[in-house]
């Protein structure tokens, strides 16, 4: 009986302890996430005060984040948006797909949250959000912003659904017009009074789109459709009036390549079969290109880099990085060049589900510093505006 009582007591005590633990253990609540601050060596910056980096975050995770690098202090601040906007529900949103600065405003295209987040470039404080379903990229001309969207009108076949470009008045921050383009439009470029839109057809694989839509900006109408390669994606412009368009291929038999379109004739003037292209940045007469193409045979991404000379129309170099750092870059996902110093940046998205790394290289291709970013770092926007974060 005594042992019995001991068992009973032990049991009751165990339950009581557990109950107390439950009642008094306080649940660690979510507070506003503070930026993670990392110092880096201070270096020459030209006119630039800093740059913003938009990290996409994996789809469905609501983890698009914004980082800021301050040239004057060398401080890299990771995830600055929540602190700058603590009362804005659910932070920046889901999948940050593009980032640009125009005037005094910072525009982030939040793909799966279906809006463009407009912020004050000086503080990253929320100004407004512009609703555009399935928005992808943004570009500017005059007083307007142009945003590409996959979500055009649904006609007979819901599978063949064109996208459109939304025209936004940057003073009122409202959509003022829409123009239907090709299938699943991606990046755009403005040349003169024309807007070039790369159509991917990504939703219709394997029947990809292969066209560039040319929009006349005065009428805001498609005036020409240029046939290039399948699954078009990124665009960059040189000073000779050429637009470089990347084609992602079909990820198996058709490889990625780059097409050159003359904006004078609105025709493809050259196909650069040997310039696979996942992303590029133009600086002077140099086009910095990286490519990460999946190889089934090797069961890994084959990563290549190149500098293409837009004046001579030749490849100047097949490598950007000269100190061996490329070995540790797994999934390059973004590229940017500081036009003043020619320091360049490569963002490594790694496995997409953990934080990435941003590498800063000198113009000779030697690593200056690297820093941990948000998940899937990709889009960089330099600014000459003074920026003061909280």
């Amino acid at each position, binding site marked *: 009986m005594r042992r019995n009582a001991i*068992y*009973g007591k032990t049991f009751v005590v165990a339950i009581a302890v557990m109950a107390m633990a439950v009642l008094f253990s306080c649940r660690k609540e979510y507070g506003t996430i503070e930026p993670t601050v990392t110092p880096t060596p201070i270096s020459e910056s030209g006119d630039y005060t800093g740059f913003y980096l938009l990290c996409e975050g994996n789809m469905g995770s*609501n983890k698009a984040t914004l980082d800021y690098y301050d040239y004057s202090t060398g401080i890299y601040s990771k995830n600055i948006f929540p602190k700058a906007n603590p009362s804005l529900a*659910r932070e920046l949103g889901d999948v940050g797909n593009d980032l640009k600065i125009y005037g005094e405003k910072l525009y982030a295209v939040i793909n799966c949250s279906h809006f463009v987040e407009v912020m004050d470039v000086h503080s990253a404080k929320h100004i407004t959000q512009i609703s555009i379903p399935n928005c992808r990229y943004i570009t500017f001309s005059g007083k307007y912003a142009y945003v590409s969207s996959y979500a055009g009108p649904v006609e007979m076949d819901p599978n063949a659904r064109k996208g459109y470009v939304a025209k936004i008045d940057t003073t009122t921050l409202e959509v003022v017009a829409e123009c239907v383009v090709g299938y699943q439009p991606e990046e755009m470029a403005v040349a003169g009074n024309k807007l070039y839109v790369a159509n991917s057809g990504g939703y219709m694989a394997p029947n990809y789109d292969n066209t560039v839509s040319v929009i006349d900006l005065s009428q805001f109408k498609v005036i020409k459709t240029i046939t290039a390669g399948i699954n078009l994606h990124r665009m960059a412009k040189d000073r000779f009036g050429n637009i470089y368009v990347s084609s*992602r291929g079909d*990820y198996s038999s058709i490889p990625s390549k780059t097409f050159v379109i003359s904006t004078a004739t609105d025709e493809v003037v050259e196909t650069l079969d040997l310039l696979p292209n996942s992303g590029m940045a133009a600086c002077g007469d140099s086009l910095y290109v990286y490519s990460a193409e999946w190889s089934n045979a090797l069961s890994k991404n084959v990563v290549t880099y190149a500098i293409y000379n837009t004046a001579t129309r030749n490849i100047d170099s097949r490598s950007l990085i000269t100190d061996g750092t490329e070995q540790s870059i797994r999934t390059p996902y973004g590229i940017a060049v500081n036009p003043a110093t020619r320091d360049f940046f490569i963002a490594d998205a790694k496995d997409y589900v953990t934080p990435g790394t941003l590498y800063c290289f000198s113009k000779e291709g030697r690593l200056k510093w690297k820093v941990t970013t*948000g998940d899937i770092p990709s889009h960089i926007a330099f600014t000459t505006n003074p920026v003061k974060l909280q």
Partner: protein
Amino acid sequence: MKFKSRGILILCIAVQVMFSLQTRAYCQDPGQKEDTTSVNTLSSITVAAERIVKEISPAQVLTGEKLQRLSSFSVADAIRYFSGAQIKDYGGVGGLKSVNIRSLGSQHVGVFYDGIEIGNAQNGIVDLGRFSLDNMEAVSVYNGQKSSIFQPAKDFSSASAVYLQPKYPVFAPGRKDNISVGFKTGSFGLLNPAFLWERKLTDRLTLSASTEYMYTTGRYRFTYSTKGGYDTTATRRNGDVRMERVELGLFGITDGGHWKVKAYFYDSERGYPGASVREEPGKFRHQDRQWDDSFFLQASLKQKFSQRYSLLLNGKYAYDFLHYLSDPREDVTTMYINSHFRQNEGYLSAAHLFTVTPWWSVSLSDDISLNKLNADLADFVYPTRYSFLNAIATSLSFEKFKIQASLLHTYVKDRTKLESAQASSRSRFTPSVVASYRPFGKTDLTFRAFYKRIFRLPTFNDLYYTFVGNKYLKPEFTTQYDLGFVYRKEFRGSFVKGIEAQADAYYNTVKDKIVALPASNQFRWTMLNFGKVEILGIDAALQGAFNACGIDFSSRLTYTYQKAMDVTDKTSQWYKGQIPYIPWHSGSVIVSADYRGWALTYSFIYTGERYESVANIVENYAPAWYTHDMAVSRDFILGRKSLPKRLKVALEINNIFNQQYEVVQCYPMPGTNFKIRLRLDL
């Protein structure tokens, strides 16, 4: 004592242990065990009443009334009360619910319905949210495998196993029919009528028919807030579910054996509420939907031919249809997807048991299965998989010491329409050893240990899904080491009626873990044997039954500690990070009190803090969550005493303190909700 000796005897002859076939009338009264057994004319079946079956490998079971009383919509909710098991729950009644045992991953858990594994060659995951508890007699979880050697080879082939045991018809003396009508309603617009009819056709043949309908709007409000920051409330939409289930069973007894045939139909339509991310409230509606049809016919025969030889035959045919539709005409933001998947499965198994001596038996099991997947995807390769599983096992059983060892051979051959797309055939041997030692004659203290090495095959999606699949994938291997004990004590005529304590410590590894890795861009992922995981853990469970002032109390506590580290890449910044969604600490409490037809059940689930990514940083932090649930029920006996009718009325309140939480990132869970349950047994 009779129970124990009977248990040992049954282990000696290595008859497959089935649980909990006690009658509803007797199931709460431990004093009635003898009657219960006598009611069960199936002589080879033991009754597990209120306690865990005497397994030599770690096992946990919830049976009968205890199971019915838990506030739960489905089997998944009940499994939350087992130590070592984590349910991945996408929220709401319709959200996918899969179980991960000891952090090895959902695809390493075999789910068995009425003795035969539920296959899903397409993605290897069984949605436990689809199995209602309405007709369930027992739910049990085994680490390693069930410690019975007389079983199909498939039962040896997963790292852990969940057994769902539907009700078996049992008739009170003088009865030929059992009819039971149930109805549940409550939050989320729930409507859930159910009907069960059991008929004793002859002394040796019984029939069971059950059907159920369920509808829910799946709507609930949820809140996201930060301390000192935002506070936003929204409603979960497009989470409606409609489902029908019909089940027919025929059960027979032969001389020295028994057989059963079961037909199962399931039909459902559901919406996907999708990830809850920052959006303009109400601007775009999620409209993607899924329709499922499942049918299976399975049969089983267990026959003892002599003292030396018994045979177990199992067979199954299953058809699963899935239609997924995402239509931009309904939701402008979405991509058009209209996919149909059809799976066919055929399965045959023969298991032989040779009882060499009373303490030594040997078994041999051979399984053949065929899985076929059709889909209307671009460039789909239409895979068919032929699997041959052969297991040899032996069991030695002495007074103090028992050991079982098995060796499984798996041979798998895939065929695809396009021969070049086909993965090469695979052949592997995998062993397991389970042992137990009971050092003291009188004290019911048993030490146990097991070792098991097993793999999961890459699924059809892993290998062949258009764009994503990778035919070069290797099997994903797990190795488990476990050491534990179980202690039981029963008391007579005192406050404490009985207690049971069990605890296990374990070390597991997962190698060649199949993970999705990015290829080129966000649209292109591929499957790779990339990950490596090491898991150290402790599972503990404590059960007790008490009686005070005429009130019967029973309680169950569980605790789990897991350190599950990603050890894929030593150079990674996140090396040895806790793997996503695995809490370091978790536990549960169930306390119930019974008094004169009244029953009160309180249950509590605790899941400690965890991270949503192997990068254990603040952005990925998921705070602990814990829910308190309460259920009150009252039994009424109606009609004549000789032929009583029983009415049961129950009220459940779940998540009493309205805690806002997520199990999976961006999939908010419901706050306080209630349910009323009515059940009439005629």
